[in-house]
């Protein structure tokens, strides 16, 4: 007869065995250590883009014998925690999307991502990428990760709303303000705004195109959010708020649908928003794009915010070589043409073909000498400051008033952050 002791021991053994097996399990791609061909496990917080990424498997085989197996997360915070945790295991990813700015610096400081200096040198030599973009990926003179994409933060507008009110695409700050006034007088709200997440873009444009050095000062802590120059800029924003130029910050209508319906005539977003507008049923006959004119007339070039998301390889990944081989191919014109075909946006590689003519046109325009690029607020500022700032700008949008209390809260977070860096 089996004793209870035996049963108990067996149960405990079974439990421990199950836990051990669970720890060992997990499907990983076929490309193992040192290999540069096979299936590459790819992780991204852009779950909706999974089909776009995987569509590249059809063309990648011609150049590199690597196919992506994509795992998409739809919650960015959950994704970040997962990636950070993975570095402690032997399952760190061979390829994963991340963020530039402080988030990437943290990974580099800990030696967690593979160096890509050789890939960048080749890409720059081949004219596949600009030197400017390299700066966002450079730490102590070395490069880490490669750009997954870039997006310029520009103005989208409803062509019918402009045409109905006799408005031409504005090329100066005064023309933009006149357009806003004309629209408002005609009963059309000029600009979209919200109180959650995407609340920073108007601030970033007002500051960077009034004084690019002031914007740069905010990124380094040399300028304060409570400086008189920033307060003056916020008062410009406040005047526009009081004039009724912005939409209701509490609306949850999809911004693309709102633009289509004519709830507002203009919306300041990244070039990727063209895809949202297409998804909402608009075509380039219905919407247009323009680089937002600078506030200051004295600048040699119009500042345009640029955002770039990286694709990285974990230094200790079993698929490190596979990931780097794919990253090298990813920067090539063939890969970027295929990517642009799958996922419409501007391209970081000037030799890639941009499938959407309107995006191609604005991409070429902004890449010209009349424009200068600066890092988007989200990546340019430390994360804690971004969190407080987007909350406070959201509160300002919801209840526009004296800007000082909002700015003081942001500066309090900035003071704490910069003090910790000393």
């Amino acid at each position, binding site marked *: 007869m089996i004793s*209870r002791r035996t049963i*108990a*021991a067996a149960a405990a053994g079974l439990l421990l065995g199950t836990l051990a097996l669970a720890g060992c399990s997990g499907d990983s791609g076929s490309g193992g250590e040192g290999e540069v061909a096979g299936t590459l496990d790819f992780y991204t917080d852009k779950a909706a883009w999974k089909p776009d990424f995987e569509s590249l498997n059809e063309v990648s085989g011609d150049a590199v014998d690597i196919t992506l197996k994509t795992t998409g997360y739809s919650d960015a915070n959950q994704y970040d925690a997962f990636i950070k945790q993975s570095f402690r295991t032997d399952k760190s990813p061979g390829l994963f999307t991340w963020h530039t700015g402080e988030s990437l610096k943290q990974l580099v400081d*800990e030696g967690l991502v593979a160096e890509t200096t050789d890939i960048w040198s080749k890409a720059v030599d081949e004219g596949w990428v600009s030197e400017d973009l390299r700066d966002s990926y450079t730490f102590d003179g070395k490069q880490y990760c490669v750009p997954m994409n870039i997006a310029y933060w520009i103005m989208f507008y409803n062509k019918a709303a402009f045409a109905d009110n006799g408005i031409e695409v504005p090329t100066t700050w005064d023309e933009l303000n006149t357009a806003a006034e004309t629209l408002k007088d005609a009963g059309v709200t000029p600009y979209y705004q919200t109180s959650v997440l995407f609340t920073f873009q108007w601030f970033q444009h007002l500051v960077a195109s009034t004084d690019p050095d002031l914007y740069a000062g905010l990124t380094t802590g040399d300028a304060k959010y409570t400086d008189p120059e920033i307060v003056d800029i916020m008062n410009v924003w406040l005047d526009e708020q009081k004039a009724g130029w912005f939409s209701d910050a*509490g609306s949850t209508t999809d911004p693309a649908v709102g633009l289509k319906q004519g709830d507002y005539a203009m919306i300041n977003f990244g070039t990727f928003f063209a895809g949202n507008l297409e998804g909402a049923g608009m075509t380039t006959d219905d919407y247009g794009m323009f680089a937002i004119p600078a506030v200051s007339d004295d600048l040699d070039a119009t500042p345009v915010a640029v955002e770039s998301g990286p694709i990285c390889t974990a230094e200790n990944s079993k698929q490190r070589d596979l990931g780097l081989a794919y990253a090298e191919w990813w920067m090539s014109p063939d890969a970027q043409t295929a990517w642009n075909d799958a996922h419409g946006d501007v391209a970081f590689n000037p030799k890639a073909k941009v499938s959407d003519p309107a995006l191609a046109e604005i991409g070429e325009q902004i890449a010209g000498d009349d424009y200068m690029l600066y890092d988007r607020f989200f990546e340019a500022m430390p994360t804690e400051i971004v969190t407080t700032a987007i*909350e406070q700008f959201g*509160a300002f949008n*919801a209840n526009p008033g004296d800007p000082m209390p909002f700015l003081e809260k942001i500066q309090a977070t900035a003071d704490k952050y910069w003090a910790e860096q000393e």
Partner: protein
Amino acid sequence: MAHQKTPYQWSARGFVAPGVILVAVLLYLPLLWTVFLSFTKYNGLGSPKWIGLDNYVEMFTDGDFVGSAMNTVLWVIGTLIIPVGIGLAIALLTWNLGGGIWLRLPFLIPYALSGIGVGVVWSFILSSGGALDQALAAFGITDPPRWLLDAPLNTVVMIIASSWQGVGVNALLFTIGLQAIPKEPLEAARIDGAGGVRLFTSILWPMLRPLTAVVVGLSIVASLKTFDIVWGMTKGGPGTVSETLALTMYKETFVNSDYGLGSAIAVFLTVITLVASVLYLRQQLSPKKEM
């Protein structure tokens, strides 16, 4: 005198071991790790750096934390009054009523939804120009309150949304409590002429007390950790005006990657929840108390 371990005791330990190991690994270790992290500066990468009580000092001196704590108190009070109160009322009104279950059932259906789902649905209703505003406009009210933009109104309407989900289960629990009350004292009270309010205050309410203690206790714990519905409706905003402690904890940990400060808030929340629960349940369920 040291007891000799019998084979029975050894096998008993063997049976208990898997459960003990699971509890230790999955519950106690994470708890201890969180307490440790609360004394450190840690961004989720590398090694935590010991900074003593700094996180706690920062937490208690931060105005936004105080705001979160006040909102959480509002949630505790609100969920005691609305879902518990209405749940009791529904149970009383449908108890002993033919087909009462069909009256209670609709209130239970929202309980099947996730908090995030409830948040998303209610944000469609309450956002500016949303379903409620459109309905009010049909009655000529064109300048309705800004439900989700102004504090403390946004917290109040979120408590109502949460109540919509939670009232059914409270009604169910109270109904079970009412059905468990012995018939004899009820009949005796009725023969003595008690009915309506008098029957409730003198007989039903005292006899429901153990169950009320559980419902209220659960409600306190649930409201202290309110997160999903707020995340789904306002993300704690505009600014931080509708944040709760659980949301601040999440934001510091997973948005700002300040695992130390997030852990300190988690420890504070755990202590508050435990103290509130223990004090309340001890006071309510003490065997010395007469029903």
